[in-house]
């Protein structure tokens, strides 16, 4: 049957068609829809889970793969950093059933901290990587990835980028999926227990094997040469290949070499493709991976070739590429006359800037505001974290002094106050991030006698990535209702001296809790509990009464998008207001009323 699906859906269906038995992952844009698609299609006998973090996902899948199951692990590129500990070792130990690790890269970056390149990780870990250029190809390629993984008993990386993950195409997929038969785990400590001796022996085996895989990849169906026999050739991979192919449709003489398997580099294939070529341009996003591989290949084989790309400044070093950018680069490289005809917009009026903001009625706004007001005039460090609440950095809240990586706010709040004992360290962390990588940081604080206040912004979901459930929500991806892991109990169990739960939308209560905790020694925690407005029914609407002085305090203090000025008057946008009532608690003359529906 044909289905019009997102690239991530195509990846999920490809894995299901390959008979995948277990799928695990942690949400992260642009990878999240893979696990969601599997959970929706869920064939009998397939286990699917949102793991607590990427490391857990990798380890759950590794054991299943030791048992002969086909497994799929999904994450975004920074998630691979979290999962790198098991992955690096797993590369030495190997697997039995096929194991494909999808790490979605995010050139731009559009919604990530880094512009890291998973192809580098593959080379670093010495494991194969596949690089699809479209949803259709991703569907086919991931099935090949399982074959490769099983043939060489190694985990395999699969690296789509945002534009492949979020592109839509029609996929011809089976109506029903059949999971593979799982042979079962066969105990053998010489094989499954990693010791220096095993690592030494396997390291040698892996290096030898990778040469073999590179050779096999040299005849792989998605490593292709198109066009004529031009002296100037183009090498591209991933979505850059799609951009280049579209542009080169009008220039069929230009040789276009596509690399679908960046590591182990298909050397024989590339060597042959470069015969008769004097100059090559490498089109790729993130890092000059292919460009450097070609340079090495030429050096080792005495091939004289001018190699252009990121290292020569012909291709931008950072940011994502596009059809337009690539068209410009290719025009220059191929010395083509003319420009595409397009409307000249250089005289366009100045466009409104639309930065992302916390939604109207978002409880995070209230939590930040309560801490800000309660701590006014005091020496504080506000350590942020990864999630919607990173947007607490925006004016007028300005409540995010740092943001580094998942869970870092908790440990950084400790570091700041060790260097400034008079300062009060605050860490803001969401519920999903708390489970993913916050708990160990709290143990660190208790163990080392730190002084800090942990603010858990508990909205009962993983909001930023599309509202996935997590251990605190009482639901899992198998559709089971499960015991909720209670954050307050976790904190009490760890030994946090004071744990209070407040409703952030009750401003006085929330500020009182902050003040109390600020004056207590040790590790304290405030759980600001209120559901995400994007998935809960609004309680009502606020409206402005006749007493409004039009002072604009509500607008200036909290910056809620639901508060606007119409003809100079402060007004509440009824389409946006959720009736959270925060503004009504700020109004100096009580001119805002909450009306419940």
């Amino acid at each position, binding site marked *: 049957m044909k289905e019009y699906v997102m690239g991530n859906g195509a990846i999920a269906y490809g894995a299901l068609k390959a008979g995948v038995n277990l799928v695990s992952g942690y949400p992260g844009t642009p990878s999240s829809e893979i696990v969601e698609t599997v959970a929706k299609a869920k064939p009998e006998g397939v286990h699917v889970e949102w793991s607590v973090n990427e490391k857990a996902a990798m380890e759950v899948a590794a054991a299943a793969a030791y048992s002969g199951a086909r497994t799929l692990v999904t994450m975004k590129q920074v998630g691979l950093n979290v999962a790198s500990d098991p992955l690096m070792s797993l590369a030495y130990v190997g697997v039995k059933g096929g194991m494909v690790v999808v790490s979605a890269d995010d050139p731009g970056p*559009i919604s990530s901290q880094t512009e890291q390149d998973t192809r580098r990780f593959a080379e670093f870990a010495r494991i194969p990587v596949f690089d699809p250029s479209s949803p259709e190809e991703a569907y086919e390629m991931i099935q090949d990835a399982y074959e490769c993984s099983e043939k060489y008993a190694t985990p395999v990386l699969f690296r789509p980028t945002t534009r492949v993950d979020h592109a*839509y195409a029609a996929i011809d997929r089976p109506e029903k999926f059949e999971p593979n038969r799982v042979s079962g785990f066969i105990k053998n400590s010489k094989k499954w227990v990693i010791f220096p001796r095993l690592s030494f022996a396997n390291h040698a085996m892996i290096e030898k094997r990778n040469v073999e895989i590179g050779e096999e990849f040299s005849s792989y169906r998605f490593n292709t040469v198109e066009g004529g026999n031009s002296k100037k050739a183009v090498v591209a991979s991933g979505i850059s290949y799609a951009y280049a192919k*579209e542009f080169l449709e009008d220039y069929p003489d230009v040789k276009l070499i596509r690399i679908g398997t960046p590591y182990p580099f298909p050397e024989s294939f590339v060597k042959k493709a470069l015969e008769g070529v004097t100059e090559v341009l490498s089109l790729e996003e993130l890092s000059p991976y292919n460009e450097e591989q070609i340079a090495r290949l030429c050096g080792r084989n005495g091939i004289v070739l001018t190699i252009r790309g990121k290292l020569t400044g012909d291709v931008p070093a950072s940011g994502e590429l596009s059809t337009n950018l690539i068209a410009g680069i290719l025009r220059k490289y191929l010395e083509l006359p003319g420009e595409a005809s397009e*409307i000249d*917009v250089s005289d366009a*009026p100045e466009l409104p800037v639309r*930065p992302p903001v916390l939604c109207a009625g978002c409880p995070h706004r209230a939590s930040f505001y309560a801490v800000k007001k309660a701590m006014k005039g005091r020496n504080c460090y506000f350590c942020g974290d990864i999630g919607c609440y990173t947007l607490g950095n925006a004016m007028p809240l300005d409540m995010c002094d740092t943001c580094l990586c998942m869970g870092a706010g908790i440990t950084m709040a400790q570091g700041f106050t060790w260097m400034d004992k008079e300062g009060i360290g605050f860490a803001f962390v969401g519920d999903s991030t708390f489970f993913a990588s916050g708990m160990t940081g709290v143990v660190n604080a208790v163990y080392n006698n730190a002084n800090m206040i942990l603010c858990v912004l508990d909205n009962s979901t993983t909001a930023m990535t599309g509202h996935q459930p997590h251990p605190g929500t009482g639901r899992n991806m198998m559709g089971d209702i499960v015991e909720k892991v209670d954050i307050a109990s976790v904190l009490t169990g760890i030994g946090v001296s004071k744990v209070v739960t407040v409703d952030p939308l009750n401003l006085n209560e929330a500020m009182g809790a902050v003040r109390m905790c600020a004056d207590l020694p040790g590790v304290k925690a405030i759980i600001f509990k209120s559901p995400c407005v994007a998935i809960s029914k609004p309680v009502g609407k606020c409206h402005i009464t006749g007493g409004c002085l039009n002072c604009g305090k509500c607008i200036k203090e909290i910056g809620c*998008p639901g508060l606007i000025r119409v003809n100079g008057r402060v007004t509440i946008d009824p389409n946006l207001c959720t009736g959270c009532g925060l503004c009504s608690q700020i109004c100096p003359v009580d001119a805002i009323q909450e009306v419940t529906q």
Partner: protein
Amino acid sequence: MKKDILICGVGGQGTVLASKIIAASAMEAGDLVHSAETIGMAQRGGPVTSHVRIGEEAYSPLIPFGSADMILSFEPAEAVRNLRYLKPDGIVIVNSVPVKPVTESLMPTGYDGTEMIAYLKKKCTCIVVDGEALCRPFGSSRYFNIAILGVAAASGRLGIAKEIILREIERRVPAKYLEANKAAFQAGAEIGAQYEVK
């Protein structure tokens, strides 16, 4: 048929549903379709675009500059922001109702969309639709995403029959809202018919 259609607006306006309906309708009509959506942080009040590419020749999910046959814009400034994508002889269908940036109340710029509409009229063929007036009978601006499809279909420039799109709407919209959506589509079609290219 080869057609590139860009749909743009501000996060939360319902552009994704409009893009999905166009893509599904084109497939129903037997064409090969690719599309791409903005997903993630940009969705929260930020500019959003959907690229719908119909036909065999499209390899990339994104429309190149100067290539869109039609831009459906849910907001005046967003049409200008994406105007480079339009073919010089393409058409823009644009909602004249502005969405002020969420920072407008904090840092007023006086943006109200009129300058954008005037600029669009100067630069390209465009159909300006007053979304507020169009959606008033249905009680919510949320129907605009379906109404604009009516305008596009009846203008004859979309290249997909009205009936096919209506069928897709029936398939995708919950029964409770179906009648209002069909009426919104019809109201849009009446506007589009005035500009019909035969």
